[in-house]
């Protein structure tokens, strides 16, 4: 029993990282209808920048973290301006292919700068586990979870109450009508990419603190697909829950596979199997938009 509880706790932590990355994905999809295949690579870039700042430039972690966030804003602006703006009005499939290409470029750049070896973050939090409900949990796990929750809260408030947040949701619904209100949709697009880069970078930094990083952490981007499709492509709440559910289920399934069938590595495919099963039951995801129909 304790074995499974432990798996659930680990799953929640990994899941909260999936949620963050899924949040970035959903924001871009909602505002611009672009399916971003480079989301995982945005995680990777953030993780490496923070690593470089702390380890190679010896900047205290908290500052390195803040600088990474600033860098993410610039990265978001750059991607939007140089890669996506020229594509406004092009076919969806071309835009998607461009994000696939961008993911390779980002990945190669990272490998060029830092190689493919695993890199370890310096110890920021104590390693001594904290007991929660009788289970030992590493402080970094707790911090990761809390940070994700805070970010989600911040963005929920942002989208609900701030002028820009409401304008972003309006733009997501009807771009031309938004323009007719004087909303500058190019700024809105740029803003979406910035937010997506920020949340991804935070996910990357958390991941780095937990496991260390190598150039494969971009694969996390793939795990985000089950999470967002499960939650519904355009729902923030769905992204949060989808990420957590996928995180927990994949850990538990993996543990069960190990225990009963002596199978390792089930984790890598579990998420996709879960996805297929859920889509058979709920094709629009748990919270996806069913067009509003008036009676």
């Amino acid at each position: 029993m304790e074995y499974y509880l432990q798996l659930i706790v680990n799953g929640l932590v990994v899941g909260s990282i999936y949620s963050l990355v899924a949040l970035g994905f959903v924001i871009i999809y909602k505002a611009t209808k672009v399916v971003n295949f480079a989301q995982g690579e945005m995680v990777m870039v953030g993780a490496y920048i923070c690593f470089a700042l702390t380890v190679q430039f010896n900047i205290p972690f908290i500052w390195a973290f803040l600088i990474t966030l600033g860098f993410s804003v610039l990265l978001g602006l750059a991607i939007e301006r140089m890669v996506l703006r020229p594509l406004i009005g092009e076919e969806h499939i071309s835009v998607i292919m461009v994000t696939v290409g961008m993911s390779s470029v980002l990945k190669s750049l990272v490998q060029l700068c830092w190689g493919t070896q695993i890199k370890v973050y310096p110890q920021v939090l104590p390693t001594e586990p904290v007991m929660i409900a009788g289970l030992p949990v590493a402080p970094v796990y707790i911090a990761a979870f809390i940070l994700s929750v805070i970010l989600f809260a911040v963005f929920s408030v942002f989208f609900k109450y701030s002028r820009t947040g409401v304008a972003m949701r309006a733009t997501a619904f009807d771009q031309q009508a938004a323009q007719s209100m004087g909303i500058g949709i190019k700024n809105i697009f740029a803003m979406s990419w910035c937010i997506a880069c920020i949340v991804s970078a935070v996910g990357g930094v958390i991941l780095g603190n937990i496991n260390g990083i190598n150039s494969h952490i971009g694969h996390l981007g793939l795990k985000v697909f089950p999470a967002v499709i499960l939650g519904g492509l355009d729902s923030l709440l769905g992204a949060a829950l989808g990420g957590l559910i996928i995180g927990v289920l994949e850990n538990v399934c993996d543990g069960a596979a190990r225990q009963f069938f002596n199978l390792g590595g089930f984790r890598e495919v579990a998420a996709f199997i879960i996805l297929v099963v859920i889509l058979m039951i709920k094709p629009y995801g748990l919270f996806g938009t069913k067009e509003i129909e008036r009676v």
Partner: protein
Amino acid sequence: MDDILKVENLEVVYNDVVLVLKGLSLACPRGRITALLGANGAGKSTTLKAISGLLETEDGEVTDGVVLYNDEPIQGLIPERIVKRGIFQVMEGRRIFEDLTVEENLRCGAFTRPRSEIAESMERVYAYFPRLKERSRQLAGYMSGGEQQMCAIGRAIMARPELLLLDEPSLGLAPLLVEEIFEIIKRFNQDEGVTILLVEQNARAALSVAERAYIMENGRVVMDGTADDLLHNPDVQEFYLGMGRTGDKKSYRDVKHYRRRKRWLG
């Protein structure tokens, strides 16, 4: 006369090939309601979009002519700039943000306005449309068509424009509601001194509130005059107000007669 808006010889082309406006000219006197009438496909919505800058997003282009707003040319400006200058378009078909609440929709209307005036503007909208107040926290997508039209006009009130472009506010509304909406449009015009350019299929309703009107066909203005003149013009009565000249059904010969007249007038 002091015209806030002057459109001169406007030509608009969609997708680089389809010529939709063929030298259209009109003027809106400051503080008045001007109606723009015409059959389906005449180019009324295109005219409004050319003024508000929204053509660009539909691959439309102004290829000739000028749009003067307060005597400054504004064609080619992006929509945000044009809204900031005080022109606000209520698009055809309401274009409500369905998954936002009524209140959030209204706030979007005030996007270019200072935050400090939003609360007061909101009260103003609720005074015109008490029904919106009751539903302020409801998702706009679940409202009736009439309530959505109120919400669309409410967004315009939030923007406090100098010139309001209204595209078919009567679309799909029951006659009683049409009357109510037009009364509010009239009141908005009188209370705030807003100039309105009103596009309508419902010529009778439009002429009841407008002071002047233009009738367009096929990308050109074919007739214009005061609302009274047009209401008593036999051609207008016959083809836009649906009154047969002799009480009979319209015959093809009448149509031909009208065509001749139209050519002559145009």
